[in-house]
């Protein structure tokens, strides 16, 4: 693929962490995703095009959102402009555009909020930086709130935990309500409502794909590992990102889940009604849409009469599942009370390793030196396992049982300080390729560092967006896209099928 | 390609961590309570008198301060003498040096008759006083070693690394000499009036500093589950043995030269023969348990690499060090001042008699609090900053097996295996 001048990556550093770049005002002001078509917006209940009194409507929408979310109100009121967050965002580190500093991004909204909803802003706007929502400012909103992947890294370093992601979501919701939607997210949400998954993959095509995979597995391993679809009465309903069905390396993960279930003797099923773990409604900040999407899962669980709910490898999906599922799509009292709602596939696999239910042989991944990319939503907005931080230890434990050698990237780039892949938050679209490439800089740099100093050969992840983003972006930095692995893809190579469980 | 050693802070959420901090906190609280009582009631509740004016708190304080300067030695060997195998230990060495100094200074301040006048002390300086100079040396030490530590941790400080490392090394020598000079300049006391106190203190610092360093390293690696290999420990063991030998040499020289000068016969007879408990402490505590036994444990060829021997030696050295400083400080004051040589002297102010000193529990608490303060600073420092390497096993420290060749070279030089 031809690489234009815009796709020249910023230089990697010989240190594991990227230094804050010199300020380059307006460097990314040109970056905007395609605007949604009227049909896309209307399918979600928004105005098809920009409404006439958009300014007043936007202010009104902002007011309603602020009044309905304490987080928004407190965050907009409490920032002291200390700049602690400023050099923490990967988009700022990769572009140098000052509006990509989280605090500056928040200020795009804060200015308007102050102008219309605080006494200081009403009386002395110039002093406190309050401003009206002009056409120019709206353009900046559209541009820069689609340069935030809602990864929450900024909130880790803010003393009050101010989360720019919340403000991004609110801003996008405001824009949606005045008819200014993003094509990528809104179109996808339309597909989910219509077909059940982001890809618009209908049930027959899905069944076909799964059958083909079953054949491949049997051919390769000699074991009849199944990928059941819409099986009523199964114990476990697996909700997984639709990319797992066919994309590389995602599909290796799907095969891995199947093998684990097979080895554990668990009866499980996928659902064509809820064939998508991802919930893009979170990115556009619409609680209603989020609930609507999530309720498909509830419906599927009821219809199929399952007892357990397990989610596959997807970052923001796990966030929605772990934190919001019970609120948005409950009640779940018909499920088996012994298991939490929901579980992550890693919890199943990890428990199986610990109890001896499955046996893994690292030789199955001989020659691989593997590192792990903590996905932002998993790291900073969810949990797994027993205590806080399980979302860091469980994937690493599973990987270490599956591969001969595991290496962590630099301390300041992993765990809750992990860098977003650069493609999350509804930005995984080609019209934002330059942004995606530059935003990936800190993570790629850290990866490159362990490649060069510790001989790392592969990077595993548990998020479909991350895997897709890396597959696209790593080659731009001169790294091999085959480096990207699903964690359960590694499990799939290492698991001893047919061996009697302990 | 230089092998980057990953450093990892201690787990600040571990239960054991809080337990240790809690215990140390209790010790500190006890010491603070004792200090408060001493301040409130006056020094009458202690064992100190108008004859023995410096007691157990000073013993602990001097010990900790001397050990502090010696604890830096491991880092200096790595940086100044360019022995790369010591480099991973340099951060801990610097931190421990600062921690022990802070602990020692705390005891010194809390034992003052008027600690509430600390600001007076910080704003009025008599530049003829070695004590005042020591205050500068101590604060300067903290600043320099702090800069050195920062240069090691933060790449922003890389420019400062070399000057800070060398500066800290030189400064620490001046500081130890200065501490020794506190006693060495006292012409009044026969036990102190000796130039050899300066090198003796430097030797003492090397011994105590290393002993504490080794013990702390072993303990914290065990507690946080970090592998600690033989390469590191063997070298430290042998190094400790050598500096211990040097220190015992200086002690011997000190007493022998004193015995030459007939005017010092009295004090030597007192310390080495007639001092009762002080004499017992000298021969049994300092020379035997704190000198010869550890010497054997550290240098005996068949014990090389034996961790039990190493830790036992370290403990004995610490205890022996305390007895040595005790003998120095208390012994020097117990012996009567000779105002009228040749006369039999008596008065209502204990002229001509040996002064006795019995430490009170408050002084013990205060001294131990100083140790606890040093340990708290070290432990918290290890948890807040990347001080400790994640892996000190032989494979991680010395993948190219350089140590073996160096051991052979050292062995050939020293005539030991």
């Amino acid at each position: 693929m031809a690489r234009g001048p815009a796709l020249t990556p910023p230089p990697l550093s010989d240190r594991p962490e990227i230094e804050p770049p010199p300020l380059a005002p307006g460097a990314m002001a040109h970056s905007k995703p395609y605007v949604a078509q009227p049909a896309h917006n209307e399918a979600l209940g928004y105005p098809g095009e920009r409404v006439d009194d958009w300014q007043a409507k936007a202010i009104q929408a902002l007011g309603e959102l602020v009044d309905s979310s304490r987080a928004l109100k407190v965050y907009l009121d409490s920032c002291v402009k200390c700049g602690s967050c400023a050099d923490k965002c990967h988009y700022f580190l990769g572009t140098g555009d000052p509006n990509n500093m989280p605090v500056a991004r928040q200020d795009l909204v804060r200015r308007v909020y102050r102008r219309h909803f605080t006494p200081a802003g009403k009386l002395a706007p110039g002093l406190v930086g309050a401003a009206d929502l002009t056409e120019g400012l709206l353009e900046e909103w559209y541009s820069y709130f689609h340069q935030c992947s809602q990864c929450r890294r900024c909130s880790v370093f803010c003393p009050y935990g101010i989360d720019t992601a919340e403000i991004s979501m609110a801003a996008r919701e405001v824009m949606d309500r005045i008819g200014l939607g993003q094509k990528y997210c809104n179109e996808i949400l339309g597909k989910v409502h219509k077909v059940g998954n982001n890809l618009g993959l209908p049930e027959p095509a899905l069944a076909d794909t799964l059958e083909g995979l079953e054949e491949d597995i049997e051919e390769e391993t000699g074991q009849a590992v199944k990928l059941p679809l819409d099986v009523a009465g199964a114990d476990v309903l697996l909700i997984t990102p639709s990319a797992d069905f066919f994309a590389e390396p995602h599909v290796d993960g799907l095969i891995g889940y199947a093998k684990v279930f097979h080895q554990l003797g668990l009866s499980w099923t996928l659902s064509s009604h809820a064939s998508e773990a991802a919930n893009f409604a979170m990115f556009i900040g619409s609680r209603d849409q989020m609930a609507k999407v999530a309720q498909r899962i509830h419906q599927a669980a009821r219809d199929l009469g399952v007892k357990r709910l397990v989610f596959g490898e997807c970052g923001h999906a796990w966030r929605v599942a772990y934190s919001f599922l019970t609120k948005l799509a409950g009640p779940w009292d018909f499920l088996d009370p012994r298991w939490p709602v929901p579980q992550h596939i890693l919890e199943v696999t990890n428990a199986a390793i610990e109890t001896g239910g499955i046996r893994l042989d690292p030789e199955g991944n001989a020659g691989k030196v593997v590192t792990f990319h903590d996905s932002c939503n998993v790291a900073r907005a969810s949990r797994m396992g027993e205590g806080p931080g399980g979302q860091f230890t469980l994937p690493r434990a599973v990987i270490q049982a599956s591969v001969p050698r595991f290496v962590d990237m630099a301390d300041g780039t992993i765990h809750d300080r992990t860098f977003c892949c650069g493609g999350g938050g509804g930005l995984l679209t080609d019209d934002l390729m330059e942004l995606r490439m530059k935003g990936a800089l800190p993570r790629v740099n850290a990866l490159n560092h362990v490649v060069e100093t510790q001989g790392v050969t592969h990077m595993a992840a548990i998020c479909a967006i991350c895997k897709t983003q890396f597959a696209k972006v790593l080659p731009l930095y001169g790294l091999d896209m085959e480096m990207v692995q699903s964690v359960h893809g590694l499990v799939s190579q290492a698991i001893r099928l047919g061996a009697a469980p302990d | 390609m230089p092998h980057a050693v990953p450093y990892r802070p201690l787990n600040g959420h571990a239960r054991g961590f809080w337990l240790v901090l809690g215990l140390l906190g209790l010790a500190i609280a006890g010491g603070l309570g004792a200090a408060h009582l001493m301040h409130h009631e006056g020094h009458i509740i202690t064992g100190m008198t108008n004859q023995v004016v410096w007691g157990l708190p000073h013993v602990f304080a001097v010990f900790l301060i001397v050990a502090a300067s010696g604890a830096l030695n491991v880092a200096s060997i790595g940086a100044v003498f360019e022995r790369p195998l010591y480099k991973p230990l340099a951060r801990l060495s610097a931190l421990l040096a600062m921690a022990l100094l802070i602990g020692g200074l705390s005891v010194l301040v809390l034992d003052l008759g008027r600690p509430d006048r600390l600001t007076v002390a910080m704003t009025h300086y008599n530049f003829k006083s070695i004590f005042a100079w020591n205050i500068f040396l101590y604060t300067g030490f903290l600043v320099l070693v702090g800069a050195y530590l920062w240069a090691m941790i933060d790449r922003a400080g890389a420019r400062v690394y070399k000057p800070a490392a060398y500066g800290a090394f030189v400064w620490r020598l001046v500081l130890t000499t200065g501490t020794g000079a506190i006693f060495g300049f006292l012409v009044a006391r026969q036990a102190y009036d000796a130039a050899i106190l300066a090198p003796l203190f430097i030797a003492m610092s090397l011994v105590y500093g290393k002993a504490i360093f080794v013990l702390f390293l072993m303990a914290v690696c065990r507690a946080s589950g970090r592998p600690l290999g033989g390469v590191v420990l063997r070298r430290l063991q042998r190094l400790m043995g050598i500096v211990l030998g040097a220190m015992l040499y200086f002690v011997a020289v000190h007493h022998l030269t004193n015995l030459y000068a007939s005017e010092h016969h009295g004090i030597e007879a007192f310390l080495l023969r007639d001092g009762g408990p002080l004499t017992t402490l000298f021969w049994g505590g300092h020379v035997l348990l704190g000198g010869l036994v550890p010497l054997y444990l550290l240098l005996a060829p068949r014990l090389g690499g034996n961790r039990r021997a190493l830790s036992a030696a370290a403990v004995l050295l610490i205890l022996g060090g305390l007895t040595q400083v005790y003998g120095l400080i208390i012994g020097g004051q117990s012996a009567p001042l000779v105002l009228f040589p040749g006369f039999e002297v008596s008065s209502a102010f204990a002229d001509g008699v040996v002064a006795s000193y019995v430490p009170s529990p408050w002084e013990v608490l205060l001294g131990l609090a100083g140790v606890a303060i040093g340990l708290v600073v070290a432990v918290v420092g290890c948890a807040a900053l990347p001080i400790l390497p994640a892996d000190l096993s032989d494979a991680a420290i010395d993948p190219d097996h350089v140590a073996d060749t160096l051991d052979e070279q050292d062995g050939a030089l020293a005539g030991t295996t």
Partner: protein
Amino acid sequence: MFAPGPVFAVLYYATALILVGGLGARLLGWGRTPVPLPIPTTPAPMTRGGVVLRMAREVTLFESLWRSQKALWLFAMLFHVGLLLVSLRHLRYLLPEGTLGPLWELVVLVQPFGIYGGMAMAVGLLGLLGRRLMLPRVKAISRGSDFLMLGLLIAIGASGLAMKFAVHTDIVAVKAFFLGLVTFDWQPLPADPLLLGHLLLVALLMAVFPFSKLLHAPGVFFSPGRNQVDRRAFPAAQGRG
């Protein structure tokens, strides 16, 4: 010479009302606004007690700033600890002698530490100001109000320290004046210019507090990112999450 007493009495009654009223309104506003979804920044504590600890660590140790930039942490610490000590020291102007036994003892005890606090406060503020001017990314996000706030605090600290070290004022009369305000038994206020400047600036600080970024002080306790418990959902949770 004009008598500053009545003017300052009115000024302080007014600013006290603004401070309490404005702050109360803002707090009520926050309290009444719902928190629809659990959004703590993970890893987050799983018990209420854990949250209290997390909040305590943030408020006393400035944990997030430590992880972010040591220099910022240092200056923010110096300033806030200094401010705390100075505030405790200033309690002597408001509390009658012997109030609540141990509390008054604490105020007496804190007096000398309050001086060091004042110095720490000044150093911290100057550090914050220097940082705001010298780091381009921080300068880029600063508005007039940010610099004015720092300037206001520096002026208050400087005038206070000047009174302590250079040009003394009549402390007994100052305390009598403020005690008089709260008991409605009004006493005269000395007309020392430094004192009046100090008090005027303090009144300004009180008045702008509820409308400025100083709201971060109560705000941190209301922040869902930090004060929410991370609870695992089980089926019996019945949709309550």
